């Protein structure tokens, strides 16, 4: 049996080795050979993927719990440093390490001739390490360690090309907005700690503790649990870019495209959904918070889909579609269908990674051009990339048979069955699905159809990427076509995914049981979903299949400088940022000067006293001795008056 700690250890080793190489070669003009670095960079994620594979399919299906030692041991807090490998973490690990390896592979070609090659792979490995810790942890504090680790890597990789200060600003923004969410995570942990002690901080302890509560006890602590759940969700809105903390993700596209594919689409941003599923037993106890999750998910999905319609940067469209799809996942979690949410995380990882890698290939061959207004007609020049993107496109809009079709339909179905409100929720989500097809159709049409509008003189130089980049793209393409069959509702028996997750999630999901008002066959949902996808597709064709007006304004990331995150940046600006700036003004002008004044006063007094103390220091022995005698008399006096013979 492979010990669990090997899984995170591999990428950690990779990060350390590559980090040392990167530091050691930082002075040289050329840097270490890229072939070797790429090999090391890919080897460790791959090893870790192998380890996950052999654990998942080689061993027994029972959860593995491994405690490495005591992490924190103080009177009110005992945390074990341990890993938990159950079906939920297995599922997450499979695609985190699998897709992580694929995208690392792709990056070897994408990052070629970049001076920061070693640094890039060191970051990527460190990201995988943190992500594995996040998923594999058996306690909330350890998950938080991974949670912070991925945030750090996200920051480092968004600002990877830090010579351009816009990229650095974008990285800062992502980090700061995420930190706002992290405070929610911390508060929630503190609330759990104060409710149930250290036991509530480990997942097993929390589940056992919640299950063991009597009804009376439960009623007493429900408000605290609701608070904890709410703040956990607040943390998730930061990491998973939901309302109100969604503004950082579009900016995060400043990083290299493989990073956007891995971190800002496939893995890190879905950790919010993972946390919800991990804490499902807590969330189902507080339906009020779950309904907040549901509504935030619905609104975010819709809002981001609308915003996606107005973007000209190809990566930014994909960023908004990621936010929108994450909204779908939270919808599913909001109706307590955590397994469906994780399933959508799973399929989304494939097709969104494929879309991003395709977009990366396009950007790469157009020498860094990201503006879709300067693309067009690329299907003739890079057919394989176009096919990859089209597969991803079909998957995301829910074209029958593709991965997104199965997972999105399941979400819609669960929404519909959610009590009396269900049909309305369903309609709203369906509208968002139509919008998805429209804005994604716009992307495909503007990029691949029509005629080339770019400025590259030799348009012959535009071509499909090299072999090493193509293979991962094609594997992901296969995934986006077929990953859905792991849980295809229309095919009897094809529900491996549901069965695998059942041991972890079923108890929570059975806890909430809302009767659906109308019973419909899954076939009906499939049909309606298909119609919605086609409708959106035709809409996109009619609206966007026409010459694109050329525009001069750039679509670079601008940090807080522009309102293109669709109002939310402005809202942040006027609420939190403004308040913080006011507070900092107050601190720097009023409080600081007051403190300075007190400081000068104290220093003045101390200096005067110091002169006094030095005055005692006489050079003559007679005087020194005399002073000591006076001192003794003084002590005797004090003892006589106060102490001693009391």
């Amino acid at each position, binding site marked *: 049996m492979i010990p669990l700690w090997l899984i995170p250890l591999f990428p950690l080793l990779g990060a350390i080795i590559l980090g040392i190489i990167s530091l050691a070669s930082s002075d040289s003009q050329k840097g270490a050979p890229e072939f070797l670095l790429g090999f090391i960079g890919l080897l460790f994620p791959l090893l870790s993927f192998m380890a996950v594979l052999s654990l998942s399919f080689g061993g027994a299906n029972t959860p593995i719990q491994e405690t490495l030692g005591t992490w924190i041991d103080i009177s009110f807090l005992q945390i074990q440093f341990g890993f938990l490998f159950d079906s939920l973490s297995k599922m997450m690990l499979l695609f985190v390490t699998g897709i992580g390896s694929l995208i690392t592979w792709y990056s070897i070609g994408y990052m070629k001739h970049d001076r920061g090659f070693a640094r890039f792979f060191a970051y990527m490995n460190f990201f995988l390490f943190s992500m594995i810790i996040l998923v594999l942890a058996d306690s909330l504090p350890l998950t938080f360690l991974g949670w912070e680790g991925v945030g750090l890597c996200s920051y480092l990789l968004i600002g990877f090309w830090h010579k351009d200060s816009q990229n650095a600003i974008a990285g800062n923004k992502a980090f700061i907005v995420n930190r706002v969410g992290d405070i929610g995570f911390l508060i929630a942990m503190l609330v759990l700690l104060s409710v149930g002690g250290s036991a509530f901080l480990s997942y097993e302890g929390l589940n056992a503790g919640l299950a063991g509560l009597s009804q009376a006890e439960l009623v007493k602590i429900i408000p605290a649990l609701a608070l904890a759940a709410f703040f956990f969700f607040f943390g998730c809105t930061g990491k998973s870019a939901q309302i109100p903390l969604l503004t950082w993700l579009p900016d995060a596209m400043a990083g290299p495209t493989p990073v956007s594919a891995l971190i800002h689409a496939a893995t890190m941003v879905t950790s919010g959904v993972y946390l919800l599923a991990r804490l499902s037993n807590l969330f189902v106890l507080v339906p009020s918070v779950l309904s907040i999750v549901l509504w935030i998910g619905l609104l975010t999905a819709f809002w981001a889909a609308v915003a996606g319609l107005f973007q000209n940067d190809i990566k930014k469209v994909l960023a908004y579609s990621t936010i929108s799809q994450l909204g779908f996942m939270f919808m599913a979690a909001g109706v307590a269908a955590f397994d469906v949410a994780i399933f959508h995380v799973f399929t989304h990882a494939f097709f969104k990674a494929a879309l991003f890698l395709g977009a990366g290939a396009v950007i790469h061959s157009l020498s860094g051009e990201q503006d879709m207004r300067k693309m067009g007609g690329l299907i003739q020049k890079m057919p394989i990339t176009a096919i990859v993107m089209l597969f991803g496109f079909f998957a995301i809009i829910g074209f029958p048979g593709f991965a997104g079709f199965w997972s999105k339909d399941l979400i819609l179905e669960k929404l519909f069955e959610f009590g009396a409100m269900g049909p309305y929720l369903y309609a709203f989500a369906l509208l968002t699905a139509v919008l998805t097809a429209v804005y994604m159709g716009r992307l495909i049409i503007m990029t691949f159809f029509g005629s080339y509008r770019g400025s590259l003189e030799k348009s012959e130089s535009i071509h499909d990427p090299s072999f090493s980049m193509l293979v991962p793209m094609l594997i992901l393409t296969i995934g986006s076509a077929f990953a859905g069959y792991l849980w295809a509702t229309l095919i009897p028996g094809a529900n491996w995914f549901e069965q695998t997750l059942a041991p972890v999630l079923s108890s929570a999901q059975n806890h909430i049981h809302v009767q659906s008002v109308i019973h419909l066959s899954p076939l009906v949902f499939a049909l309606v979903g298909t119609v919605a996808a086609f409708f959106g597709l035709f809409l996109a064709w009619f609206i966007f299949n026409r010459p694109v007006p050329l525009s001069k304004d750039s679509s670079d990331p601008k940090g807080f400088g522009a309102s293109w995150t669709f109002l939310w940046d402005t809202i942040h600006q006027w609420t939190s940022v403004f308040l913080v700036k006011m507070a900092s003004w107050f601190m720097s002008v009023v409080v600081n000067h007051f403190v300075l004044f007190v400081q000068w006063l104290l220093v003045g007094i*101390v*200096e005067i*006293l*110091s*002169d*006094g*103390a*030095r005055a*005692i*220091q*006489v*050079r003559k*022995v007679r005087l*020194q*001795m005399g*002073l*000591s005698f*006076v*001192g*003794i008399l*003084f*002590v*005797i006096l*004090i*003892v006589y008056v*106060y*102490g*001693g*013979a*009391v």
Partner: protein
Amino acid sequence: MIYPFLPDLLLLALAFLVLFLSLITSKNSSLPRWAASSGLIVIFTLLNLIPINHQIPFLFSTWKIDAFGLFIREFLIFAAFLGISLSKNYFNSNHKTSKSMLQHPEFIALILFATLGGFVVVSASDLLTLFLGLELATIPLYALSAWNKKDILGSEAATKFILMGSVATAFELFGFSYLYGFSGSIFFTDIIAQSLSHTNSPLLWIAVLFLFAGIGFKLTLFPFHTWAPDVYEGSPTPVTAVLSVTSKGVAIAFMAILIYGPLKQVHLQIMPIIALLAGTTLVVGNLGALKQHRLRRFMAYSSIAQAGYLLLALLGPASLAKPAIVYYLLVYTAANFTVFFIISVVERTRSASFNSLRGLSAENPFLAISLAIALFSLAGIPPLAGFLGKFQLFLNVAHAKYYGFLVFAVLNNVIALYYYIQVLKSAWVDPQDSKSPKLQILKTEKAWIALLSVFTLVAGLLPIINDNIFKILQSF
């Protein structure tokens, strides 16, 4: 099984051996020094092997070897070893400079005798042994401080030291005689028994007061500290280092043995006096250090303040105070010796003042970093060992519920930080003086400074040493 008495006997023999070797070897032979160093290592090893808690009949009294005594012995050996290593270069240089000294073997032997005095103090179970030990620990230091006969300042320092020291001894003897008069016995057990029933006896209180005054001289407590700046500045640097570490260590061990031994029945009543002495010492030491510009005088004030901090430990119960004292002494030794090693490097070519440190960070980053580590440790900044040490000292104050006093002591630490940073400012911020001669650093000095700095870092980061001291002291 090793005879528990062996390390103490060996140390006595070692001191005579060194003297003997100096007779049969040539003048500049390093054999006595090697013998002393290796002998100290052997004794240190033996100390770790002998069984804890032993009472050996010795003349009319008993020779006590407990865990606290063992730890203080180990600390004393550590300090003596460092002192001998530091002194080496003062004897090796050519004889023309005013700083060079002669007769290194005798110098070493005196340090060993002083160390033996410390051994005797922690083994005492009666007043006579205690007194003899303290004197044995002090008298060699008088001679050591006057080692450099050519130096007028050194002679002045030694004269002052011996005058003040004699007065202190007189106070102690006076106190002891009253303690004897109070209990009719010189044995600790009898004194404890007597003080159980006669807590308020004026005889006892006169004894306590005079004992405190006497030891106050040795520990440089206010108002008995006045000799320290002059003596520390006038003596040769290795002697200053030994004075500030060994003699302080012996004095605080002496106090701990008195307070948790014969005086333990009146500990609660003595506490206000301890707090008073510690508080005033802290203020005077810290304030005095504030405007110093000469390194050794500065270190004198710093060590006065450190004595105040050490005294804080005696407010707590024995189980908390003894580990705190032992650990802080170790930490203090490492940091203090780092500084003195650096001072000895600096004063090889320059004067021992703050100005000589200017631009040290550019000229010799290694020294500048070590200096920062040592001074921050002395100031008690985490994660260095000094933080943990000071924390435990303060813990004793908190245990005695002297919360207001605790705040006062911690605030004093702010002043301490200020003047320690003043030194660092010279080393890190002030620009280099282009006219000053270059520093010459020897390999052995470099090694010692590096080792001590690593010790200071590791002892702060890994709680192993601290944990062990706690466990051993609390289980025996």
